[in-house]
């Protein structure tokens, strides 16, 4: 595409096309958007985070690209969003597992792990959402390298995870962290590895309710919400259990469309509606973060 206007948001893209899109976005909005490389993958691909300039901090991880256009369009137009951006930086990491993503295009569309090799095993890859240093290795992950939920040899063993850990720690002032997955139509908060409620349970539950209500207002898409361990199942070493342990109160993880009819094979025709409804939930969380400094 020659511009983000002619980029086709209603189809799936290769890693190269997505990375070209990042450069287009930066080129078109030099005053608002810049690109940061936070590391290299196991196979040597760059890992990028986009920074949308302001002065406070939210980290959005794995956001659908159609939302980018919205961000640059709405700044200055939408009062609520402009207020957020005037106070907070937004960091966006679209491709959190570039090696795995490239592999889904070249060889196995169903691949979900990283592509790292495990000594002593023929099986490849670690579940990047079981590799974080929060309840690492406890039940709710597998110690079998051939399993889809293999947690890896040690916490942060995956460079794709360590790059984000270092970025979050170096920054040191992130106030909300949102990790986005598919599928099941869920909005979840910590914990995944234990049943004990988080200290901020009531506030996170109320905010989740408001966010899923906003999301449903567009197309009626129904999301459930709750802690990871209650809403879905026990999962140890998950992303937001770690970010919460770092003091990032507003730590959430989404499972977007659908509820299983297509599952991981969501038709491209649903990309834009999914992004539009998710944006309303993200806006709700960002506004709450803005209005409740801590």
């Amino acid at each position: 595409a020659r511009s983000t206007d002619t980029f086709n948001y209603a189809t799936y893209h290769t890693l190269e096309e997505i990375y070209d899109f990042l450069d287009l976005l930066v080129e078109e909005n030099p005053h608002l958007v810049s690109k940061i490389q936070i590391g290299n993958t196991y196979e040597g691909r760059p890992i990028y985070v986009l920074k949308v300039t302001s002065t406070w901090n939210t980290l959005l991880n794995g956001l659908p690209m159609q939302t980018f256009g919205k961000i640059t369009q709405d700044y200055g137009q939408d009062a609520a969003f402009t207020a957020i951006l005037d106070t907070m930086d937004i960091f966006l990491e679209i491709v959190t597992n570039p090696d795995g993503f490239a592999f889904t295009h070249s060889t196995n569309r169903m691949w979900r792990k990283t592509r790292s090799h495990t000594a002593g095993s023929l099986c490849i890859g670690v579940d990047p959402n079981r590799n974080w240093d929060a309840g690492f290795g406890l039940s709710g992950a597998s110690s079998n390298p051939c399993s889809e939920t293999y947690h890896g040899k040690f916490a942060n063993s995956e460079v794709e995870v360590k790059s984000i850990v270092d970025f979050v720690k170096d920054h040191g002032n992130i106030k909300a962290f949102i990790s986005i997955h598919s599928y099941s139509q869920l909005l979840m908060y910590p914990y995944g590895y234990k049943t004990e409620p988080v200290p901020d349970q009531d506030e996170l539950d109320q905010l989740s309710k408001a966010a899923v209500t906003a999301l449903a207002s567009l197309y009626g898409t129904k999301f459930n919400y709750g802690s990871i361990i209650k809403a879905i199942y026990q999962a140890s070493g998950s992303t937001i259990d770690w970010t919460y342990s770092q003091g990032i109160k507003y730590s959430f993880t989404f499972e977007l469309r659908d509820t299983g009819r297509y599952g991981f094979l969501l038709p491209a025709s649903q990309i834009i509606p999914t992004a539009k409804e998710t944006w309303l939930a993200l806006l709700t969380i960002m506004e709450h973060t803005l209005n409740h400094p801590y």
Partner: protein
Amino acid sequence: LPTLTLPRHQVLRISVADEAQVQKVKELEDLEDLQLDFWRGPAHPGFPIDVRVPSPSHSISYETMIEDVQSLLEEEQEQMFAFRSR
């Protein structure tokens, strides 16, 4: 990819009635040679399990969510190439 000579893959939704069946499905999950790809793993009764399987299995009740994964993949690929060639 089509180059693999695979039986038709399907995605099945398993409805487990009780904890015993959850454990049964968990045992299945550990049998690597069955090549079961759990999209939504076994958790607790009432929580639907989605699994991509090379072929249907046993008498645990299930419904087929995706008849033919390969045709969906091809449709998706065609859509991408069509856009790119346009």
